[in-house]
């Protein structure tokens, strides 16, 4: 279970990027963070994945905090962002083996898992091709596979379908549902309504560094008396966004 309690983050003295965010993500649940660009989604995701430390507040993963159990948390988290560009001269196969060693996965286990995930994501045909020879979708799939090498119970995906074509996007979202059904907790950030609607059990709407609304799609639509989720989001956004 992921627990985020009153988390604040400021890069400069005068401006807070995250302003007291709290939520919980239970096992086997997909939790979505929805918000416009600059709302603080990526900062929040990076704090949950321990890449950034909060200015105040606490984040625990299965009761462990990053300060005392950083490496234990890393064993439980798989973090993926579309911003990651893998080493252009390596191949998905070599990268898998390298990360397998870093996660201390026994060779045989690593090999069978590689086969399984590569088949599932359709990486097999290009596993020995260099990353710089792959399309965006192929790169993204390789990156997803490597993030999940250690079969982490908690998966954090920052904009998982960003820049992907429809087919690859469908492949990725189907895989996320499969992971959820296997009992993984997933937090994903997105600004694509259809992704949020189809995947998330619970959605938090982040505006200017604050969670201004939280619940499942139906409850958010009802709460705002909107026709659909997209309209509900805009109503919430207009109500809470403050121009600086």
């Amino acid at each position: 279970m992921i627990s985020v309690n009153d988390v604040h983050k400021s890069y400069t003295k005068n401006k807070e990027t995250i302003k007291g965010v709290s939520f919980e993500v239970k096992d086997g649940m997909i939790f979505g963070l929805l918000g416009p660009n600059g709302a603080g989604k990526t900062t929040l995701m990076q704090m949950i994945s321990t890449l950034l430390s909060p200015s105040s507040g606490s984040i625990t993963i299965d009761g462990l905090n990053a300060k005392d159990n950083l490496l234990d948390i890393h064993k439980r988290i798989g973090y993926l962002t579309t911003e990651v560009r893998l080493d252009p001269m390596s191949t998905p196969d070599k990268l898998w083996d390298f990360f397998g060693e870093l996660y201390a996965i026994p060779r045989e286990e690593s090999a069978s898992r590689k086969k399984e995930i590569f088949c599932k994501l359709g990486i097999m045909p290009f596993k020995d091709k260099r990353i710089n020879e792959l399309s965006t979708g192929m790169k993204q799939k390789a990156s997803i596979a490597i993030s999940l090498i250690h079969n982490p119970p908690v998966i954090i995906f920052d904009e998982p379908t960003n820049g992907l074509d429809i087919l690859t996007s469908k492949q990725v979202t189907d895989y996320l549902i499969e992971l959820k059904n296997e009992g993984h907790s997933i937090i994903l950030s997105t600004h694509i309504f259809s992704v949020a609607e189809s995947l998330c059990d619970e959605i938090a709407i982040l505006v200017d560094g604050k969670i201004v609304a939280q619940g499942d799609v139906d409850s958010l639509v009802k709460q705002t008396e909107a026709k659909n989720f997209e309209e509900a989001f805009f109503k919430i956004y207009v109500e809470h966004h403050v121009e600086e």
Partner: protein
Amino acid sequence: MRGIYIIIKWEISRIYSNWRRAVATFVVPAAVMMVALCIFPYLINYMLTGSLSEKPVTIINAPDSFTEYVESTEGTTVYSYKYITEDEFSELWDSGEIIKQLKSGSLYVMFRENSHTAYVICNGNSSIAGSKADSFIEVVMDNYNDTLASQGQTVYTTDSFNPVTKLLDYRSDANFGAARVIPPVLVLLIYYCIYSLTSDMFASERDRGFYDKLLMTPVSPKSIMLGKILASTILVTGASYITFIFLFISSWLNRSNSSTSLIPFGLFLLPDQLAVIALVIPVTAFLCAVICVNIVFSIRHMKDIILNLQMPLIYLMADLFYQIFSLNPGWLEFAIPVHGSIAVIKTVFLSEYKAWQLICMLVASLGFALILLNKTFKKEGYNR
């Protein structure tokens, strides 16, 4: 330790898996060194004699046959002549002018009619002057003697010497010139290689987000950083050793007597001297890697990182020109990180190195590197 080992293995395999990277790491430094060694003799020659092409030679008691020979070959050699008598030479000698001129690379040739000998006088401590003298004997005196022989006249015996055999006896002769050029160029190359490797291993990976992916593994951020630093140290040390071996082979294959041939001509170092250089190189590479990593993690933006990584190159270029002019490093120079490495290699080439100089350099370099590494570990950017 396991994490450090995996990172080192990965980074080294990345270099070998791409021939362009391998060439850039292992062949380019050696090629740059050879080009530098081709250019610097001209530069040093110019600084010593004030001339790139014409080499002034003073002839004492020139026989008529010699002046006639010179007139007949005018425009075919690179030498310009000044003629003086033995009395004038003695006067100049007493005033100390001759010694001064010799030290600045001038060449004197004294003819003795009675013994039919031509003494080529030069500064024997300078390999440039030595090879210049050798070149004069080959180009001018041998041809002059041929002319005399063809006319049935007695030839002049020249005080000829083989620089290679001379170097074996007085090896500081060849190493003298090398000491001016090789140490600063070698350290400059070490920094350049480290700079390009750390730009890729740290700056580009941070920019690509790949470094974050490494940080998300159960290997500690310290191990990741140390692994990368040690990998670049190992690679650059290997490249420097290859450069060094290449340099020695070229030096001994090149038997040209031209004054502008590659230096060091007949380079010679004893095993203990080689061992000192073999020790200084990895320490310098490690220090340079730590400096680069500190710069990478002190600055947020990629463009600024690259610009700041280039700053030490400017310092090393300036140091290179300082080293060409300066020969005997002061004691304080051994305690200056990076510069101390140049000073130690220089004293090794001059066969003047002492243990305290090496210890001073090692303590200063490793101490500075560890302090800087500790500071880097405290930077926010290093684990993100």
